[in-house]
């Protein structure tokens, strides 16, 4: 039991360090990006007046606008695949594995790769996907293809394969937690009310773990939207999503356009999170 009441001076004092940090690390930089995205004039100076020209020019370019749609589509695709895959893995870990030692071992095997950086893990996919890569060699060894399949590397398919492997655990983690919290008695009560296992799952277990699914989906969505490293490493210079566009503008010194794309990314992420929060109230999960 906490003895610190809500909205008391002590509560605000305790929230202060985190608030300061978030302001410095998140709020101020975001405001700066927003500000730069409205800069007019030709020079890079604080005295620039604010205009809508940058946005107007961005939206006049069909390639750029199309990229927003493609990025959203890519995110939706990865969310769907990791959602189903992640739930299956979570169900296996939380429900099917009954021995704690086995569960811990499997969990560590899944988690340890996450100790390396996302960029390294993206690059690690190249030897798998290439024309002489592991996957092609395996396919040819099994006699499934005669010639190497070229669509793996430098393609959207390859990017998707890498992203699914990178982000499935983000979708699975919260579901494992939620599944472990569904009391077995609820399953039993439903069975005693004549519900066969499939119905027990769809009517009892799945609705109760839905918040975990949504949280996982938000995590995957945010990561795919922000992912430029995998796209750059696996897609080469043939593929680009919104994140890569930021990099492209930044490298060529077009800071204002980089800021515009940054704002677009932030906006779409914000919309995604708001939609998710409408489905499930994350703040009430602890109750």
């Amino acid at each position, binding site marked *: 039991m906490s003895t610190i009441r809500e909205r008391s001076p002590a509560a605000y004092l305790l929230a202060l360090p985190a608030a300061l940090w978030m302001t410095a690390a998140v709020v101020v930089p975001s405001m700066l990006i927003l500000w730069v995205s409205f800069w007019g004039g030709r020079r890079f100076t604080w005295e620039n007046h604010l205009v809508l020209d940058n946005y107007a020019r961005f939206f006049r370019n069909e390639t750029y606008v199309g990229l927003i749609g493609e990025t959203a589509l890519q995110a939706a695709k990865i969310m769907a695949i990791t959602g189903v895959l992640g739930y299956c893995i979570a169900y296996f870990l939380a429900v099917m594995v009954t021995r704690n030692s086995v569960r811990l071992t499997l969990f560590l095997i899944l988690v340890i790769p996450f100790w390396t950086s996302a960029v390294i893990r993206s690059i690690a996919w190249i030897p798998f996907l290439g024309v002489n890569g592991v996957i092609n060699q395996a396919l040819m060894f099994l006699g499934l293809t005669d010639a190497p399949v070229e669509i793996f590397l430098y393609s959207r398919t390859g990017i998707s394969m890498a992203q699914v492997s990178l982000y499935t655990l983000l979708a699975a983690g919260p579901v494992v937690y939620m599944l472990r919290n569904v009391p077995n008695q609820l399953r*039993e009560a439903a069975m005693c009310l004549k519900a066969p296992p499939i119905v027990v799952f769809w009517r009892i277990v799945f609705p109760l773990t839905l918040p975990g699914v949504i949280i996982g989906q938000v995590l995957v969505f945010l990561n795919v939207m922000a992912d430029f490293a995998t796209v750059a490493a696996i897609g080469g210079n043939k593929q680009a999503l919104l994140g890569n566009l930021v990099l492209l503008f930044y490298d060529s010194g077009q800071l204002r356009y980089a800021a515009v794309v940054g704002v677009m990314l932030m906006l779409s992420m914000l919309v995604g999170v708001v939609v998710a929060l409408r489905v499930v109230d994350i703040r009430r999960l602890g109750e």
Partner: protein
Amino acid sequence: MNGTEAAAAPLDLEIRSIRKLYGDFVAVNDVSLSVSRGQFVCLLGPSGCGKTTTLRSVAGLEAIDSGDILIAGKSVADLPPWRRDISMMFQDFALFPHMTIARQVGFGLEMLKWPKARIGPRVQEVLQSFEIAHLAERKPATLSGGQRQRVALARALITSPRILLLDEPIGSLDYSLRETVMLELKQVQRQLGISFIWVTHDQNEAFSLGDRVVVMNHARIEQQGTPDEILSRPRTPFVAGFIQGNNVFEGTVEGVQGSTLTLNTKSGPVHASLDGMPAPAVGQRATVSVRAEHLKFGPTAAENQLAGTCEAIEFFGSLRRYVLRLPSGQQLKIDQFGAEPARTTVGATTELSWRVGDTVLHTQPGGPA
């Protein structure tokens, strides 16, 4: 029960010497039980005695290792829970947290593939009869313990199962609420004529509700019978010790005269009635018991006489209980109606006596049943 009777009215439930193991641990050992139409049966025993496992085996939530379970005359041992004509009420009610009360009370009917148009009115009807119609659109988290209990009962009974299994169904309620709920449940059971199998460790519950009480210990049934039979004639030392208000004597058999057995105990000779039981051999260890309300103060014509010092006087509802210490060190309990004048005071030595007919001989563990 003979064969023709069984054919005329099949038993609601018949358990035929079931056995359940968890690894090396025997959870249920050779348990047999018959429940005829509309009976209220209480499984009573300390925790870990196998009563809940027995109940869960009937529900199909535990797979039995041997024996058979018949519901309404048909073996269900190989059927999953959702194919058995039972309902179950769980200790903390197991309400579905994401469903409104109306939705979860109707869940069983949905599973029976009732058309939606008929489920709604039927749920309303049941909610009304349990006086919880005003809660229909609420979620379980906002309900009190007593309200949850009613919802759980409505949800379990709406499908009119053949048997309702109840696992400590009022154990999580406030003490003050239990008596009311017990009366209500008993009334519901009478009205519907559905068999109730009620698991509890509380003997007050078992004796006030059960048409039949089954006392279990160490995975076995120790004794089953009407509350009166178990209260007045406990058949094993465990039952006598577990049921409140019994004084148990242990000793060696000194002799048998007619239907009277004399036991040599550390507190002196105690005479007990054989009551149709086979007489144990002279020199054998045996236990007998006598209920606290059968002990009388002062010397009477009764055959059993002892004297002891009063150590404490306690009140149990309308009863006054004296705790006496015998010279042998054994404690005895004597119950008297609280309305009667007190017969002794703490610290005083008093004589007491009781009749042979009130002294019950037990079947000894490992001896003939």
